[in-house]
């Protein structure tokens, strides 16, 4: 009898700790979110007061972003054709400035898709303006 009592007294009380540990585990499982890797693209803003960027210079590319389509120097194109054109132009001179004019009606993803293609082509100097 006396041996058993001594054994019982020596046991560490684990139940409460296990409860807390499981609660912590459940908390972390519930609140855990898959990490979303973001990508950033630096763009140049128009200078304050500038109504529009000059677009008639030969070393400037002007791309317009509309809802569902794009134009390159005034010519209407789909995204894949635009990508091909941009790749070709970047091979000639990837340092040239790209003026991107975005329609207010266009979606943000359409701008991101264009920026993505410009990055793929190798253009670094991107200016984003709003199409008035």
């Amino acid at each position, binding site marked *: 009898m006396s041996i058993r009592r001594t054994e019982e007294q020596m046991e560490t009380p684990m139940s409460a700790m296990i409860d807390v540990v499981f609660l912590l*585990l459940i908390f972390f499982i519930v609140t855990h979110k898959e990490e979303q890797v*973001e990508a950033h693209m630096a763009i140049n803003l128009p200078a304050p007061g500038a109504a529009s960027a000059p677009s008639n210079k030969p070393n400037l590319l002007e791309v317009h972003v509309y809802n569902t389509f794009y134009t390159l120097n005034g010519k209407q194109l789909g995204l894949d054709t635009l990508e091909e054109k941009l790749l070709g132009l970047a091979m000639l001179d990837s340092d040239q400035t790209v003026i991107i004019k975005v329609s207010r009606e266009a979606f943000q993803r359409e701008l991101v898709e264009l*920026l*993505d293609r410009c990055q793929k082509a190798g253009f670094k100097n991107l200016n984003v303006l709003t199409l008035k």
Partner: protein
Amino acid sequence: MKNSKTENIETPITSMIDVVFLLIIFFVVTSDIDRESVDDKVKLAKSTYLEPVTKLPKNRAVVNVRASGEIMYGAIPRSMATLTGALKQAHAIQGAGMVVIVRGHGDERYEKIDEVVQAVTNAGLSRIKISAQDTGLKDK
């Protein structure tokens, strides 16, 4: 003899506790601490070729634009005027070199992004970055 019987009845919980603690450590380590600037309601447009960001710039202001059109800065909805004021304040605290990161929902019209861009310009800032979700397909 009686003693060995008692030992057999006990459930072996040591290894289970080990596993549970390892799981807790995993979740603590992988949980993103820098969540103050990330709005879960913003679903970014996907990008393949833009440079993935491993570390955000130290001096930054993150503006979120939700699909509902709400412009959020510091978890507070902002109008263009209040956003300009808040960005000016942030600029005064963080100093030159502050970058404004625009996290726009992919399905939001550019009109709202333009409002943010105007607020950034009005606040006297010029460094702006457009945020997208990296697909991780670049090297595949």
